[in-house]
């Protein structure tokens, strides 16, 4: 009996009759043994990637806050500039009003000096120099024109700052995409038996898509407004198509 058992154990492998499917099973075991370490690598990679997501969302949030703060500061400066230009504009108006009075007084003095220059030879020359200096100063027209141009430029800067609102909505859209990726990674990692990922702490992450327009565009092309105007006009005419 013992010799029979010993004989069976000692039989070379090739002499054991192969059972159907053994090759398939061997291949399967081989594949699984190769895949398992790969899955571990994938899991670690997912964990590392997912770990950076909350920070990315927070950084986007910080960008929005920083640009809003900077934009408000710029608007503050522009408002002060506008107030100063308003004050200067009032001063120019007063100057313009006195210009007419000054000119008529100067003309009167012109004739008085012409009469007196006979007995005062240098008087006319000095008066001409004085008169010329007024001409060199320029009129208030030029001042008003320059102020109007500066005021228009300040307004242009203010209008361009709309970019902050528009880009903040685009960023909110990106944050939402990042959050959806985080949630999917979370599910995959839970399938690996891992703990849930830490939620993103960014304020923008929890916002509903109704609170922003992720497709907002900053473009100065007039055709967007023209397109909207056309739709409004057609609607008012009863064409709701």
């Amino acid at each position, binding site marked *: 009996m013992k010799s029979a058992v010993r004989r069976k154990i000692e039989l070379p492998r090739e002499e054991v009759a192969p059972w159907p499917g053994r090759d398939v099973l061997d291949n399967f075991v081989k594949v699984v043994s190769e895949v398992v370490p790969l899955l571990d690598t994938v899991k670690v990679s997912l964990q590392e990637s997912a770990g950076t997501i909350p920070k990315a969302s927070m950084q986007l949030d910080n960008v929005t806050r920083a640009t809003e703060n900077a934009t408000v500061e710029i608007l503050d400066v522009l408002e002060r500039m506008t107030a100063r230009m308003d004050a200067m504009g009032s001063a120019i108006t007063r100057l313009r009003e006195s210009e007419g009075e000054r000119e008529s007084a100067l003309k009167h003095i012109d004739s008085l000096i012409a009469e007196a220059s006979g007995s005062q030879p240098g008087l006319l020359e000095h008066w001409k120099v004085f008169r010329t200096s007024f001409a060199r100063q320029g009129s208030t027209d030029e001042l008003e024109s320059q102020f109007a141009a500066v005021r228009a430029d300040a307004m242009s800067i203010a*209008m361009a700052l709309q970019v902050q*609102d528009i880009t*903040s909505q685009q960023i909110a859209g990106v944050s939402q995409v990042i959050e959806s990726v985080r949630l999917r990674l979370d599910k995959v990692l839970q399938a690996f038996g891992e703990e849930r990922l830490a939620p993103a702490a960014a304020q923008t992450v929890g916002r509903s898509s109704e609170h922003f327009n992720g497709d907002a*565009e900053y473009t100065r092309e007039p055709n*967007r407004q023209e397109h*909207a105007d056309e739709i409004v006009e057609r609607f008012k005419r009863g064409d709701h198509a």
Partner: protein
Amino acid sequence: MANPKFLVVDDSLTMRRIVINTLKSIGFESVVEAADGKDAMAKLMSEGADFLITDWNMPEMSGLDLTKWVRSSDRFADMPILMITTRGNKDDVIEAMKMRVNNYIVKPFTAPGLKEKIDQILKSIESPMP
């Protein structure tokens, strides 16, 4: 309507400042502001207004829902409403018009564009179409 009192509604502080400054630059000095639809409702009830300028996408209550509330209220149903929004698709414009906004501006807006729309609305109120 001489010297209408505007209520400017937008969740972006930047946009509210820009719209308000633009209104003042075109001669409209009387302005109050709100940060979302709910805040706007409260301001309307407490301070009143003659003209509503509102964004669309806002937390708490959207500009569209605010418009719906205004149009269904006894006190403010006929208030002129101008929507200023980043949403420029045809469907969006039609949806806002169906809610009975008076006109629609796509951001970024221009000062002349804002003035034109406000003047059109005020004129249509004073001389309503038969």
